[in-house]
């Protein structure tokens, strides 16, 4: 087994649950999410020599995973990658308040939220995976967080926003 294969297997062993959970939110289905994870890591294995080491291996696999999810939706490709999904909680009954708060966000914001808070990617990695700029990631997350804080009644955050606005 070569070094790259071992590294990919290590990411899979450590992060399988993170990939599956985030993808379940992105594609809205646990079983399909599992299928996307399996297929993505298989593709990562077969194209492992393409990984140039210019970023985290996990983020590189995420770029494959998002494209794989994009292809496996079974719908024609009409949109940009970042606008192609309708992320949601597959089991809204687990946290109905959160599910409702998420529905208020645009699909793009929801995707970035899942990549940040469930997949634990940083801003630069999200930018790369979604093929958008770092600034757009920051702006999208800032807006999503403000909206979620408002919906979920996070008064500390609202107070902070108010203070920033009045400064």
């Amino acid at each position, binding site marked *: 087994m070569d070094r790259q294969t071992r590294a990919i297997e290590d990411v899979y062993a450590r992060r399988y649950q993170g990939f599956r959970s985030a993808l379940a939110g992105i594609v809205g289905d646990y079983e399909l*999410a599992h299928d996307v994870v399996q297929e993505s890591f298989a593709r990562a294995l077969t194209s492992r020599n393409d990984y140039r080491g210019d970023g985290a291996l996990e983020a590189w696999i995420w770029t494959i995973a998002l494209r794989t999810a994009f292809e496996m939706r079974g719908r024609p490709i009409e949109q940009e990658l970042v606008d192609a999904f309708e992320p949601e909680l597959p089991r809204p009954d687990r946290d109905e308040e959160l599910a409702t708060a998420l529905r208020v966000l645009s699909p793009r914001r929801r995707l970035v939220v899942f990549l940040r808070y469930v997949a634990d990617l940083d*801003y*630069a990695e999200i930018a790369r995976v979604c093929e958008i700029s770092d600034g757009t990631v*920051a702006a999208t997350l800032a807006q999503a*967080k403000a909206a979620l804080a408002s919906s979920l009644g996070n008064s500390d955050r609202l107070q902070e926003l108010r203070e920033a606005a009045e400064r």
Partner: protein
Amino acid sequence: MKRHETDKLDRLLSSRLKNALGEDGRADWPDVCGRAGTSRALWRWSRRRVLVVAGVLVLIAGAAGASTGIIPWLKTEPAQTPPPVYPICAANDVTGALYLHEVPSSRPGLSGEITLLNKGEANCALQGDPKVSLLDDGVNVANLQVGLFPEVKSVFTPDSKKYSYLASQTLIGRVTEPLEQKSWIYLWWENWCGQNSGKLDLRLEIPNGTTLELPVTKVPSCVDSAKPSLLSLDQAQGAHLPPAESPPFARRSSQTGRESLSR
């Protein structure tokens, strides 16, 4: 926003999302290896795919049997609503604040927000692009490159796909409106290698004649001193105010023309 407040909200959201999404899956590395080992050109029939294809076949068969000859879906576009026309904000009515903060990113940079406030008597709008520059003790910083986010065409013209009834204006709610009715411009700033010897301000010149000088409280780290500092602006997030009911205001015709974003 203070860093610890951001962290608190980040932790809260992360934990809540993971709890809502968490469900034990079955990690299966041999399956990954098996998929990677078979011909990549062949379609692999997972259990899900078999079910999906079977479901589609059933639906097609059902639809064929129940065909009435009526076209089931006729694509229609909603009638285009004429854009509302709010008065262009008077120069003295617009004020703003700049807030910069660090974000968790492997690429160093600062995320920022410019909040625009309307001190006037009525809700108003902005159009066109601002001129943006940095002032170090009142002197223009030469080594600065200003641009828009790649996805953005203009700062004060909302994307008509997102704001169907605000197709041509960015509305700014009055100071007395709730927080959500303020207007925001998000920005991204990276690679600051200046000396920062004096007071640093971000100057924003809006086409309506407003010039704002917003104190800079934080600067991004220097990555490459041979390259200019990069400042990118997003499209302004306009207030979600009800459409204007009255016909075009007289002041609209006196607005200044579009100016290009430059330093």
